[in-house]
C-alpha cells in the first residue's frame, strides 16, 4: 500500500468516525467533542502556516478570539432584553447618556452592524483576515522571520486581550460575552448540546480539510514548502516570498476566526481568555503532537490532547499538573517525534511498503547470483 492510498483511507475513516459519533454520544459528550473539533480547525490553521510555510504564529488565539467575539456580538444583540442596548452597556454607561447603540458608551456604534447575524458571521472570518493582513504586511515586508514572528504575533494577541479586558463598557471586559441567544439561520436553531451544532462544526471541519488539502497539494503548497525550505532561493527564482507568506498567514487567521465562531456556537460564550497566551501555545502543541505538516495529523492531535486533557481535569491528582504534562509533551514531541503522530504513521506505512520491496529485491539478487 502506498502512503498516498493509506492517507486517503485515513481521511475517509476519520470523516466517517466524526460523522458517526453523535449516534453513540450523549448530549454532554456531543458538545464536548464538538468543541474538540473546533480546536481541530484551529490546529489546521496552525498546520497551514507553520507546517507548510514555516510561519510559527503564537498569536493564533487573537484571530480565534476575534472570530468568537464577532459572532458573540451578534448573538448578544439577538437576545430580546439586549434591545436596543445590551445590558452590559447599560451597566457601564454614563448617567445621562442616550440609550441608543450609536452613543450609549464610547465606541458602542461599532456594534450597530452586528444587529445582523449575517454581518457577525462574515465579520468572524473577514476581521481576523484583515487584522492578519495588517500584522503580516508589516512583519513580512520587513522580512521578519523565525522566532521574531512568533514574538510579534504573541505580543499582538496580548494587546488584543488587554484591549478587550480594559474596555468593559464596550466589550464586556474580563467576563466577556455570555447569555447569548442560540444561533438561528432561516428558522433553524442550532442547539449546542444537540447534533445540529455538532454537525455544523463537523461539516465545516471536513470542508476546511478538503479545501486546505486541495490547495496545499497543488502548486501553491509546493511553493510554500520551497519558501519554508529556503526563502532566499525562492526569491532568486522570482517568487515574491512576502506575498506568499502574507497569503497563508491571512488564510490561517481566517480559519482560526471561523473556528472562533464555531466556539461561540458550541460554548455559548466568548471571553478575553480565548486570546490568552496559554491557548495560543496549546494550539501549537496540538498541531505539533499530531504532526504539523499534516492537516489530518494536526486535527487528530487536537482531538487526542483535548480528550486526554478533559479526562485529566476530572481527576483530582492530574488536574493541577496537566499544564506541566502538556509542556513536557511539547518538549518530547519536538525532540523525539518532530513530525508527530502523522510522521509515525508515515514511517509505519513506508516501512511495511519497503519490507515488501526489500523481499523482492533479495529475490532478484539471489537469482542474479545463480546466473
Amino acid at each position, binding site marked *: 500500500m502506498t502512503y498516498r492510498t493509506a492517507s486517503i483511507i485515513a481521511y475517509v475513516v476519520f470523516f466517517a468516525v466524526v460523522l458517526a459519533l453523535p449516534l453513540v454520544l450523549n448530549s454532554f459528550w456531543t458538545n464536548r467533542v464538538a468543541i474538540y473539533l473546533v480546536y481541530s480547525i484551529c490546529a489546521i490553521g496552525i498546520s497551514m502556516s507553520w507546517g507548510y510555510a514555516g510561519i510559527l504564529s503564537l498569536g493564533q488565539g487573537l484571530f480565534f478570539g476575534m472570530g468568537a467575539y464577532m459572532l458573540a456580538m451578534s448573538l448578544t444583540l439577538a437576545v430580546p432584553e439586549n434591545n436596543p442596548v445590551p445590558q452590559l452597556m447599560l451597566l457601564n454607561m454614563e448617567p445621562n447618556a442616550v440609550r441608543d447603540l450609536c452613543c450609549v458608551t464610547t465606541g458602542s456604534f461599532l456594534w450597530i452592524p452586528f444587529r445582523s447575524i449575517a454581518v457577525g458571521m462574515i465579520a468572524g472570518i473577514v476581521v481576523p483576515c484583515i487584522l492578519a493582513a495588517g500584522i503580516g504586511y508589516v512583519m513580512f515586508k520587513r522580512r521578519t522571520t523565525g522566532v521574531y514572528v512568533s514574538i510579534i504575533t504573541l505580543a499582538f494577541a496580548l494587546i488584543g486581550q488587554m484591549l478587550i479586558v480594559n474596555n468593559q463598557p464596550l466589550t464586556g471586559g474580563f467576563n466577556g460575552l455570555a447569555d447569548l441567544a442560540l444561533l438561528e439561520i432561516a428558522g433553524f436553531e442550532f442547539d449546542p448540546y444537540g447534533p445540529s451544532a455538532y454537525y455544523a462544526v463537523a461539516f465545516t471541519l471536513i470542508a476546511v480539510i478538503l479545501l486546505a488539502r486541495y*490547495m496545499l497539494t*497543488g*502548486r*501553491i503548497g*509546493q*511553493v510554500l*514548502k*520551497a519558501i519554508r*525550505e*529556503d526563502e*532566499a*532561493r*525562492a*526569491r*532568486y*527564482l*522570482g*517568487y*515574491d*516570498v512576502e*506575498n*506568499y507568506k502574507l*497569503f497563508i498567514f491571512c488564510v490561517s487567521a481566517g480559519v482560526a476566526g471561523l473556528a472562533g465562531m464555531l466556539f461561540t456556537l458550541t460554548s455559548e460564550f466568548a471571553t478575553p481568555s480565548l486570546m490568552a497566551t496559554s491557548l495560543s501555545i496549546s494550539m501549537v502543541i496540538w498541531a505539533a503532537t499530531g504532526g504539523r505538516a499534516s492537516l489530518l495529523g494536526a486535527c487528530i492531535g487536537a482531538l487526542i490532547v483535548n480528550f486526554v486533557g478533559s479526562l485529566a481535569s476530572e481527576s483530582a491528582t492530574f488536574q493541577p499538573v496537566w499544564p506541566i504534562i502538556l509542556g513536557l509533551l511539547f518538549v518530547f514531541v519536538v525532540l523525539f517525534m518532530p513530525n508527530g503522530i502523522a510522521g509515525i504513521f508515515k514511517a509505519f506505512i513506508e516501512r511495511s511498503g519497503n519490507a515488501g520491496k526489500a523481499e523482492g529485491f533479495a529475490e532478484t539478487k539471489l537469482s542474479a547470483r545463480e546466473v
Partner: protein
Amino acid sequence: MNAVHRASQVATVSAAPILRTQKLTVRFDEFPAVREVDLSIADGELRVIIGANGAGKSTLLDLLCGKTLPSEGEIWLRDRNITGIGEAAIARSGVGRKFQTPTVFKDMTVLENLQVASNRRVRVFQNLFDRVKPGPSDKEIAVAERTGLLGSMKRRASELSHGQLQWLELAMVLSQDPKIILLDEPAAGMTAAETDKTAELLLDLAGGHTVLVIEHDMAFVRRICRTITVMHQGAVLAEGTAEEIEHNPAVIEAYLGSATLSHA
C-alpha cells in the same frame, strides 16, 4: 589605467550588451567593497571574473542579483534599468543566480526542486488553484539530462552529494530561462572528475546562454574562458583574454607574491 583602457577595447564585441553596469558602487560602513564598476557583457558571452579574496567579486554578483543594494550606479538588463527593483523582480526579468554554497530545497525531491524553478507563473493567485503535473515535463527532463540528474529525479535533495547539489542548483537556475546566469565558484568543493564535468557543462552552456562566472582556480578559468575581468580592491583592474591578462603588468603587480595567477 592604461590597462583598463586597452581591456575595454577588447570587450567591445559586436553584439549589444545584455548586461551593463554604470559606475556600480557599494560601500559598507564607508568602505567601498565595489568601486565604480563598468561592466558590459555581450549576448552569449562566457565571462569570468577573477581576483583575490576580498576583491569584491561575490559582492558584485550580489549587486547584480539584488541581494545587495548599490550605493551608487545603475544596472541595466538589455534596455531595462533593474537597479533596486528587488530580488524577485530581478529574477523574473531574467537574472539567474547560483550561489557558492548550493542553496536548494533540501526536503524536496530533485523533480520538485525543478518544478518550483521552472514554474514561471510566480504570483500567488496564479498558483492558488494550479495543479502540479505528477511527472517531469519535457523541459525538466532536458535540464536534468544536461546536468546529469535524470537518474536522481525522485531522490530528496538532502540525499545528494555536494557535486550533485551544485548541479541541481545550476539546473534550477537553467529552468528559470534566464537571460544571464551568474555563477559563484561553480566548481568549489568538487572532486577533479566533477570539476571536469562542470567545465564541460559551462562550455556547453556558453553558446545558448550568457554566463558570468566567478572563479579562483586559474586552471579551471583557462579551460572555460574567453574574456576575463580582473577585480582588485573593489574595482576592475583589467579585462582581456587569458593570455593578455597573464602578461598585463598591472595584474602582475597586484598579484606579486601570489602564485595564483602565474603558476596555477
